[in-house]
């Protein structure tokens, strides 16, 4: 008899979404000069709130506020800065459920991920970096580490609050002040974070949150009084930023796209490998820059791995992000859905074979079923371009050297996965794969102590860990 799980929705009542939001500048919410825009719930297409758009003058005001705050913040004893960060970490924990629900509503990601992954990791990030604030002399990044100044930070919509934490926590720990622009489709948790800064009595201007789209981001990155630019997003925008800061003294870190190979050898622990494939590409609807979007499976076990993968995929539950049993939520925006649909269509047109389990998608909102393409070669566009959705391209290989060659045959280099029970082979593969993060017999794991970032066109600089601090210090020699 079938075990039908009854709906198990997380209560929305914990969040209080206001009809409209201003910009958070110099410790207070203010109106923006630009035209307000709407943020919607991608699972229902319901409008959640009106969001102020920051124009150049607003950006300038925020940068000036950050500059004013920098004087005292950077001179404040590290142990005092540390306490502010610890305080923020604790408030994040106290309001964890509220943040998780809000994140799922605004982003479309399943509550189990926002609750069990995003928000706890956010708090962990602040907790970790808090402890650095008064220990920077010991970080081994050169003598007399000093803050850079004002950091202009632009973050994406896939992990709105987590990306905020990756940016804000190290910046503040190192004595910088920040102006941060969340993505236009997911501003709400950043604005709630602004409220948390108020609750923590963080000095005005240390954190400024400005909302808007690409133009706002450009104004921020290009502002002459910004000393540091940190960006996470697409490689195209990353290149534009690299050009925009050319010839300036701005220090830059870029966390960009990826097309990671997840390599499964014939001697892998297959059940765990299948879990790794699933979490590699379907975690967060595949809206993950380090997603394992290219499965490279050894030909001798390809049939069996695919069989197991399909069987596993049939148990994935797609639907209401707030249902505690949902595994795959909504695609973040109509625009992103269109891109996934288009690239998948190209996969069909190029002759790859598409498969998805039977799953009923909700009538409204933006949805895409978990999908795999088999019969894919390196020449297919779906094997080269980042789809940023729940779409896996399956390729095969015969020997370790062929796996390495195919895995590295991309301008990207963010992450890679290896599955084998043979220790020496893991170390060999980890050595040869040109990627900033190699997950061996695991995938999509993140930790504030663990540096993250890419090779080649996946960007430069690291976030997290000791190396991540270098991005926010003068002369930081990671």
């Amino acid at each position, binding site marked *: *008899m079938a075990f039908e799980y009854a*709906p198990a929705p997380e209560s929305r009542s914990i969040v209080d979404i206001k009809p409209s939001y201003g910009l958070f500048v110099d410790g207070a919410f203010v109106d923006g000069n630009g035209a307000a825009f709407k943020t919607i719930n991608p699972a229902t297409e319901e409008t959640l709130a009106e969001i102020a758009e920051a124009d150049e003058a607003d950006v300038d005001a925020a940068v000036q506020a950050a500059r004013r705050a920098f004087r005292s913040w950077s001179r404040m004893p590290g142990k005092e800065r540390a306490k502010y960060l610890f305080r923020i970490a604790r408030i994040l924990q106290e309001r964890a459920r509220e943040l998780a629900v809000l994140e799922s509503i605004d982003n479309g990601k399943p509550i189990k991920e926002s609750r069990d992954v995003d928000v706890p990791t956010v708090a962990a990030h602040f907790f970790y970096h808090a402890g650095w604030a008064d220990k920077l002399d010991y970080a081994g990044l050169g003598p007399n580490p000093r803050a850079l100044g004002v950091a202009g930070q632009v973050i994406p919509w896939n992990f709105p609050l987590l990306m905020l934490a990756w940016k804000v926590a190290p910046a503040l720990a190192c004595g910088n002040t920040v102006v941060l622009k969340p993505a236009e489709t997911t501003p709400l948790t950043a604005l709630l974070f602004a409220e948390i800064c108020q609750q923590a009595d963080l000095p005005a201007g240390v954190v400024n949150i400005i909302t808007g789209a690409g133009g706002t981001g450009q104004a921020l990155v290009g502002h002459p009084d910004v000393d540091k630019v940190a960006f996470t997003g697409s490689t195209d925008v990353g290149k534009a930023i690299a050009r925009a800061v050319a010839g300036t003294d701005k220090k830059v870190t870029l966390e960009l796209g990826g097309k990671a190979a997840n390599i499964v050898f014939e001697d892998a622990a297959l059940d765990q490998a299948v879990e*790794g494939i699933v979490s590699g590409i379907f975690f967060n609807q595949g809206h993950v820059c380090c997603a394992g979007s290219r499965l490279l499976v050894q030909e001798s076990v390809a*049939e069996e791995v695919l*069989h197991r993968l399909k069987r596993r995929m049939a148990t994935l539950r797609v639907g209401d992000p707030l249902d505690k049993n949902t595994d795959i939520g909504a695609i973040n925006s109509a625009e992103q859905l269109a891109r996934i649909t288009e690239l998948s269509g190209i996969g069909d047109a190029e002759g790859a074979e598409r498969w998805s389990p039977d799953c009923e998608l909700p009538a409204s909102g933006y949805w895409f079923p978990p999908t795999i393409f088999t019969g894919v070669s390196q020449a297919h566009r779906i094997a080269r371009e980042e789809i940023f959705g729940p779409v896996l391209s399956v390729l095969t290989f015969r020997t370790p050297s062929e796996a390495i060659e195919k895995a590295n045959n991309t301008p990207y280099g963010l992450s890679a996965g290896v599955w084998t029970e043979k220790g020496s082979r893991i170390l060999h593969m980890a050595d040869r794969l040109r990627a900033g993060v190699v997950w061996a017999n*695991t995938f999509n794991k993140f930790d504030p102590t663990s540096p993250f970032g890419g090779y080649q066109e996946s960007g430069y600089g690291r976030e997290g860990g000791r190396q991540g601090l270098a991005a926010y210090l003068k002369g930081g020699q990671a």
Partner: protein
Amino acid sequence: MPTTAPTDPAAGLASYSEVTKDERALRRFLHGLPGVDQVGAEARAAALGTRSIKTTAKEWALDLAIRMVDLTTLEGQDTPGKVRALAAKALRPDPSDPSCPSVAAVCVYGDMVAEVKSVVGDAVNVAAVATAFPSGRAALDIKLADTRDAVEAGADEIDMVIDRGAFLAGRYQQVFDEIVAVKEACQRPDGSHAHLKVIFETGELQTYDNVRRVSWLAMLAGADFIKTSTGKVQPAATLPVTLVMLEAVRDFREATGVQIGVKPAGGIRTAKDAIKYLVMVNEVAGDDWLTPDWFRFGASTLLNDLLMQRTKLTTGRYSGPDYFTLD
């Protein structure tokens, strides 16, 4: 491992006769099974444990869990009075509610089988532990006699223990042969046989690789059920151990067409835990296993918690231990 199930179980099993023909073949086969990564397996089990089972699904799951309980007493101090009381409870777990189902079986030592049978008749199965339970340290003929005694006394099911020493020493053939011999001892004169559950004592085998190997070994040797633990060794049943065993029975059926049951035993005390196991059965092995014929809980205190939660759902208020029998 083939990925499509043979239609004929006999032929399916026969296709594996090569791997059980001698010690070397058996070892090669068992050591060739895919490994189990501990961290990955535990993470998967934990993730399944976060499923939220509410309202109608919970009602359904609680009743199913009750029907899957092998209500167990395996103590030196067991007396006829004690096991009769337990047997009565197995028949009517909640005397105040006639809609409450009976459990699957009562599990006792072999010498108590007749006592239980006299209370439950054919309404509830009687399972007997055998083969020098719990350590399994006795000569084979003693183990076989132990088994035959229980079958003759009317046991519907035999819960045997494997020789963990032999398994850990790599004497797989010996473990295999012993299971085959016990299975033969389960035969009744009328040609039917008592269902054989094979207990691994996974807490002593330590690694999930061992659990996967011993699962295949037992299934190839003719086990009807594979069971985690005696309840006498910690840790007993855990979600990840059960996960590995569920993967084994799933893969075995795909390979041979033969379905094998799974019984976690020991350490499952709350309804919440039991539901996690059912979720795991559902998502790993599939709903074919969601019946007492193919999945059991070896437990004693679990039953009362299932009953309390069941009452909470029907009455809308939390109950207390005083409202349930202690047998």
